[in-house]
């Protein structure tokens, strides 16, 4: 169902809420000098909750193309929107008691966060190259600012510079790819593009041009998801950015990147039956994706082994996790897609949890070095327990939630008979075990470094830790709802 602009507005409430909230936050920030520190977070949280409510209940079950075919409203987008709103909400809560951000004026921070979230919601929805580009840039530009938010901090400056340089170059390449696609098909709409490709047959186009267009486009998506070889920015940016921002970047834009990647590959580049790649006969696309995925996870894991800065280590680990998520995209089935969604869903809780612990420890110790975590067990037992669970979950050890993510990814690839791919994936998990266990080792097994004063964990942070721990601990038992939810979210593609 194609809707015109006015009709579409009814389904655009989540985004509208965010836009309004963003403006209100800016106004509050300049008009209420005393109250702004209280009001702004509250407004942001309220806006995110309202947007989530609209997404979950009001828009539920609707299938439509909004704004004359610019945005798709479907269950796939709904999954990502809820996911992204949840991630944003958790990050807002986690940033409230971050000493790093308290040093600077916080007003714009919430406005920026709302803007990024808005951009990501649009990314998840977009089926038109123009909207795709605009929403991607909305996310990118605001996240450059958020990374460089600590103006006086050299690391933050440098991270932001590297981010914007890599970002601008890769979106430039992506745009060039878009222009070639547009030239070949005469359309910016993903479905029309696919139909054009299919109707003229692959032979109808110059193979080299198609290849060039796709490679350039994938560069842009690869940048957002931090897949090798477009990952160079990732460790530096993660290490330099304020920790809550890092936590946010490691989950949300990555997920949004996967959302557009999936939309682009699955609805733009495959046969309508969905079981075959529709483009460029000479190139074995699954093999290319397998290659990217294997490189991404292996490089991420191996580089993470040698890191002593926990933030940097988690940056490399998030590269590795992007590799796992990519594993699911190789398989052109609903199972493959479902595994990606499940992986992202569990990854949200464990990764945000790990970063939250990093934030809390930095608040009192001012250090990201793993060496300074020694003997943390005695100073903060609960925090150590939480970190232990997050690390084990990231490793993929049952019964923690991370295991389910890995399980589904492996299920998807093994079903297609890609045994070696699965073996590489599992061996990577064993390598990853080494550095994740290193954190646990430092916190629990090593003797303290002289500091004995109990570490202060604010009530809010404790509550947040518990909130993040619960999914990690109990999802394995109460798995069915998640399974059904993700399965219904990918129906769109599995019946393609």
């Amino acid at each position, binding site marked *: 169902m194609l809707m015109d602009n006015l009709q579409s507005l009814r389904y655009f409430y989540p985004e509208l809420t965010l836009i309004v909230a963003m403006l209100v936050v800016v106004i509050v920030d300049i008009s209420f000098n005393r109250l702004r520190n209280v009001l702004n977070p509250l407004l942001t949280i309220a806006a995110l909750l309202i947007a989530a409510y609209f997404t979950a209940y009001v828009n539920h079950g609707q299938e439509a193309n909004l704004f004359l075919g610019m945005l798709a409203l479907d269950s796939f987008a709904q999954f990502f929107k809820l996911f992204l709103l949840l991630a944003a909400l958790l990050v807002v809560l986690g940033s409230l008691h971050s000493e790093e951000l308290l040093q600077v004026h916080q007003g714009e921070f919430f406005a920026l966060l709302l803007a990024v979230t808005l951009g990501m919601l649009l990314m998840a929805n977009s089926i038109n190259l123009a909207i795709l580009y605009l929403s991607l840039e909305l996310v990118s530009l605001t996240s450059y600012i958020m990374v460089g938010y600590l103006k006086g901090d050299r690391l933050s400056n440098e991270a932001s510079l590297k981010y914007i340089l890599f970002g601008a170059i890769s979106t430039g390449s992506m745009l060039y790819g878009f222009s070639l696609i547009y030239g070949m098909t005469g359309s910016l709409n993903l479905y029309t593009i696919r139909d054009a490709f299919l109707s003229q047959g692959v032979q109808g186009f110059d193979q080299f041009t198609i290849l060039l267009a796709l490679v350039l486009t994938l560069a842009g998506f690869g940048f957002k998801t931090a897949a090798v070889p477009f990952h160079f920015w990732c460790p530096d940016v993660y290490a330099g950015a304020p920790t809550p921002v890092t936590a946010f970047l490691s989950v949300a834009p990555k997920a949004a990147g996967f959302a557009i990647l999936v939309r682009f590959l699955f609805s733009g580049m495959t046969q309508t039956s969905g079981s075959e790649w529709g483009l460029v006969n000479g190139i074995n696309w699954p093999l290319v994706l397998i290659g990217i995925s294997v490189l991404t996870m292996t490089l991420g894991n191996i580089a993470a082994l040698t890191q002593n800065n926990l933030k940097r280590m988690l940056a490399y680990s998030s590269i590795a996790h992007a590799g796992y998520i990519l594993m699911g995209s190789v398989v052109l089935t609903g199972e493959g897609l479902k595994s990606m969604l499940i992986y992202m869903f569990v990854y949200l809780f464990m990764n945000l949890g790990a970063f939250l612990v990093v934030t809390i420890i930095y608040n009192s110790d001012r250090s990201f070095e793993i060496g300074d975590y020694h003997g943390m067990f005695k100073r903060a037992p609960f925090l150590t327990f939480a970190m232990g669970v997050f690390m084990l979950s990231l490793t993929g050890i049952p019964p923690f939630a991370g295991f389910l993510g890995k399980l589904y990814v*492996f299920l998807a690839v093994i*079903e297609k008979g890609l045994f070696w791919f699965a*073996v590489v994936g599992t061996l990577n998990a064993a390598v990853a075990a080494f550095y994740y266990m290193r954190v646990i080792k430092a916190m629990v097994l090593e003797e303290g470094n002289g500091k004995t004063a109990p570490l202060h964990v604010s009530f809010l942070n404790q509550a947040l830790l518990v909130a993040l721990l619960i999914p990690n601990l109990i999802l394995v038992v109460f798995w*069915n709802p998640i399974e059904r939810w993700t399965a219904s979210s990918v129906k769109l593609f599995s019946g393609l």
Partner: protein
Amino acid sequence: MENVLLTIVTFLPLAGATLLLAIRKDNLKAIRLLALSTATATFLLSLPLFFHFEASTPGMQFEQLVTWIPSIGVNYHVGIDGISLFLVLLTTFLTPITILSSWNSIDRRVKEYFIFLLLLETGMLGVFVALDLFLFYVFWEVMLVPMYFLIGVWGGERRIYAAVKFFLYTMTGSVLMLVAIIALYFFNGGTTFDYLTILSNVQTGKLILTVTEQSWLFLAFFIAFAIKVPLFPFHTWLPDAHVEAPTAGSVILAGVLLKMGTYGMVRFCLPLFSEATLEWTPWINGLAVVGIIYGALVAMVQTDIKRLVAYSSVSHLGFVVLGIFAVNQQGMEGAIYQMLNHGISTGALFLIVGMIYDRRHTRLIQEFGGLATSLPVFSTFFMIVTLSSIGLPLLNGFVGEFLVLLGAFKANVTYTVFATSGIILSAVYMLWMYQRVVFGEVTNERNKGLPDLSLREKFILVPMTLLIIWMGVYSQTFLRKMDSSVSQLLSRFQSTAVVLKK
């Protein structure tokens, strides 16, 4: 009610661990008592499993099946047969003993220690009772974590190194097994992880795997188990882990954890991949024999008693593997019996080493000598356990080793001859060690006036010694219950092997 018994037994320790969380950290007495009573209650609850076990039924008993994740065919399915019954009992029996043994010797982070110990028990029991491959894998990995902490926090000097090594070795093996489990799941149609369903499909010919497929799956499973056993050449983590672990850790490690590897071979490798088993049997038996002799020779030159016992484990477990891959009734029963023996005898040896370490804070053989004069009761227990470990007739070790050798002899004479030399070597190193520690003049002043066994320590060793003698004198109590399960396993095994060969 009976079908939830296994679940209760498995998760009671977990419940105990959760309760422990609520107790204040410095209330040591309450912590210890709660841990002990949980473990004892688990043991008592597991006794009906033994008494109500129908010896004539070869299949699973006390089964319970609950749907868990229907869309991928995962169920919570537990049950035991004559093979796992005794391993469950061994676990529930050893845990209270290890808790008693660490009563005073663990003095820091007591609460966490007992929590991990109880979590470990749940994990181990789960591995033995799980009848769903998914569930099995979950438990298999779950028990890695508490063991890592037991070694890493409460271990000896190089504990961190040992813990990491232990973790990485087992993790590597088990992730490969995960791939094999998923692959098997899809070969079977991708509808269920249920072990019994897959097994019956294999046997009725509904699921036919080519020899190559079988071999890959077999190897993936086997390597995971072989690392756990540990079979030569995957054994290098074991001495480190054993030596560095606290006494209770060593007892659990030797007594139960190593058995998971051999149990896995019996449960999964043999019945599911019979053709591949036959294919690889010569190699595996070869490795087992190398392990037997290598372990014995290395044990002989050790100066640290605990290290010596650790290497003797490598040798003993070689016997178990040899018995399993003899693929006949005697060998298999002997192997299972030997698993129990090793759990009890080596467990007791580690306890004894721990007791002596508590007194002298050293485990070097040269530091001792003439303990018989100052510690007569201790030396007597030590004697019985040593003899049981060597395999003296009328003690438990003899029955197991004899059956294994009998079975192995039927299968392959050459290997048996070499393996027998392992028994002689074991007599040499054990008795030599015993002689240097216990007999002779008191050479070291500090050994004079050591206190003999306390009541608690006697309370630990007496049941173990009684079991050692009982299992040696009247093995029928135990063998009777495993007969039908083992013969069913083997008969199915041979029939499928024949079907496949055609």
